[in-house]
């Protein structure tokens, strides 16, 4: 035990001195390379995590809220809506519930026809539950009790030049324009476009909203039904616990958290991204191992005679091997610290200038778990990459090594 400690202490001493008084250019270059490899290991996964976060945020913020109540199986609507809303809004942890009621229809504008769902909302509740009101591209959001007006998503409004559209649209509707809607119940109405929103979500920007009062007017009777009820929980509340509370209230409809809603397909997407991340990490580690291996191999070959002499004067080969391992470990720590500074700079940069994608602005998400995992992986890989060439040279015959 004592002997092992003595050898390790001497290894550390030799390794440290070699770094302190060795070639500074080589040291800086190695640290920069390890730092870059570390940055590479973190950056791509952070962009993918950022994309996943964006998708989740868009779903929660614009599409489902934290929890969504859907009709019972084999039912198309939720009955006794007012009673349900009164109960839901009393559940601890629920900030607000906002009902949606869809009706099919065909929208028409200057010869363009676009079939789709028109969703009735209660704006006063809706602004507390979804963030669409904050994403107005032009015009205004719906007001409580508005009639004769409609709110449309950017993908519905479209462009005059339809080749610029990603999906069928009304061909360039602007705020103030009038569009006709032919509902599936036969009612035909003309609406003034009060506003156009743009969330950059492909699931949300094709939506169209009218007020609850307008829907009652179209249907010709009070509406006490909903196709969905979106719920925003109080910040910091555990969504799963709120869901259990709702079930405990005896609500028979389907209650899904945003996670349940995204379901298996989302889990598969995350898993696929995980595979991409793993491949990227493996490639980065292989690069790190190869670079460090070459650096230490060159260093040990250059020091071959010195290694032979150290052995000749009685320094154990383990001591010599670990003096190089310690050097690599110190270089890896310095490289990881350098990489962390790069990541910090990238984090600051992308928080101001996010990566612009058609479906939203992605900010790389640097998670502590990713950073720690990759730092540990790089650390271990570096130690192995440093150990192998040093071990090979240190076990060489003394006289062969001394000949250089």
């Amino acid at each position, binding site marked *: 035990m*004592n*002997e092992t400690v*003595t*050898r390790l*202490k*001497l290894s550390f*001493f*030799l390794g440290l*001195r*070699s770094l*302190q*008084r*060795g070639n500074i250019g080589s040291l800086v270059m190695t640290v920069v390379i390890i730092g870059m490899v570390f940055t590479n290991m973190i950056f791509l996964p952070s962009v993918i995590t950022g994309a996943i976060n964006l998708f989740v945020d868009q779903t929660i913020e614009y599409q489902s809220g934290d929890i969504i109540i859907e009709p019972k199986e084999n039912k198309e609507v939720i009955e006794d809506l007012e009673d349900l809303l009164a109960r839901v809004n009393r559940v601890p942890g629920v900030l607000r519930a906002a009902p949606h009621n869809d009706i099919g229809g065909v929208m028409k504008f200057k010869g363009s026809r676009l079939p789709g769902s028109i969703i009735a909302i209660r704006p006063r509740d809706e602004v507390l539950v979804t963030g669409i009101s904050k994403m107005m591209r032009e015009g205004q959001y719906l007001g409580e009790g508005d009639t004769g007006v409609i709110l449309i998503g950017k993908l519905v409004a479209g462009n005059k030049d339809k080749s610029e559209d990603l999906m069928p649209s009304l061909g360039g509707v602007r705020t103030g324009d009038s569009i006709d809607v032919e509902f599936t119940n036969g009612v035909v109405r003309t609406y003034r476009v009060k506003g156009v929103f743009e969330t950059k979500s492909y699931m949300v920007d094709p939506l169209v909203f009218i007020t609850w009062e307008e829907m009652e007017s179209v249907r010709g009777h009070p509406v006490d039904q909903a196709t969905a009820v979106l719920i925003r929980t109080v910040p910091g509340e555990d969504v799963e616990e709120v869901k259990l509370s709702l079930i405990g209230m005896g609500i028979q409809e389907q209650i899904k958290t945003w996670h349940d809603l995204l379901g298996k397909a989302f889990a598969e997407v995350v898993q696929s991204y995980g595979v991409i991340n793993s491949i990227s990490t493996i490639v980065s580690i292989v690069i790190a191992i190869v670079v460090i291996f070459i650096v230490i191999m060159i260093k040990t070959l250059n020091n071959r*005679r*010195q290694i032979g*002499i*150290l*052995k*000749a*004067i*009685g*320094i*154990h*080969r383990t*001591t010599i091997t670990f003096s190089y391992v310690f050097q690599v470990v110190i270089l890896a720590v310095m490289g990881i610290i350098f990489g962390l500074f790069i990541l910090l700079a990238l984090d600051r940069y992308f928080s101001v200038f996010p990566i612009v994608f058609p479906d939203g602005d992605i900010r790389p998400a640097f998670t502590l778990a990713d950073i720690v995992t990759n730092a540990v992986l790089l650390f271990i890989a570096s130690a192995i990459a440093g150990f192998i060439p040093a071990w090979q040279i240190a076990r060489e015959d*003394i*006289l062969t090594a*001394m000949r250089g």
Partner: protein
Amino acid sequence: MIKISDLGKTYRLGVVEVPALRGVSFEIHRGDFIGLMGPSGSGKSTMLHLLGLLDYPTTGTIEIDGIDVSGLDDDERTDYRLRKMGYIFQDYALVAELTVLENVMLTAMAQGKTEAECRLASTNVLSIVGLINRLDHLPKELSGGEQQRVAIARSMVNRPIILFADEPCANLDTANSRAVLDQFRTINEELGQTIVMVSHEEWHKEYFHRVIHLKDGQIEADEKQPN
């Protein structure tokens, strides 16, 4: 003290066998200062490598204080070299990144001594070789003669039972060579240090107690020096 019996070494170059040392026997006594001399290819370096446990003999044995050390395994040899032997090489062989003091402390540290013990032992031997004022200098800041004196100090720090020097003056001018040899003489006479040194310079003989002449891998002559 050291008994060499029928020591032989044959190198294999492919299918060709090249005998470098052919059944050499002699004894080294405590306090000897022996010169191994002979022309190139006579086997003197091979002899030094075998005595210094840097290589394995093909035949024969080396007994040090009654123990056959020729059969030790690699780790045991390393440990034996650390604790019982000292080496001085032709090109000084100092660690470039270590100061004079650190180079000398190295083998003491490897023995597990405390830093204070290492420092004390190292400064003692450095004062013997006259380098006490150069403790914090790096090897590149020293002359060849000074570097060789550091190497002597390093070889002495663990109080070896025998010190091996492989043409230690080969890279030095006459003045520096004489300074190094004077150093050897001092540690031999004052500390009773046993020294075996390879040399091909005739004038070095004046420092040796005994000269073993090798030729074609055999002892040609083993003569005591008159001084």
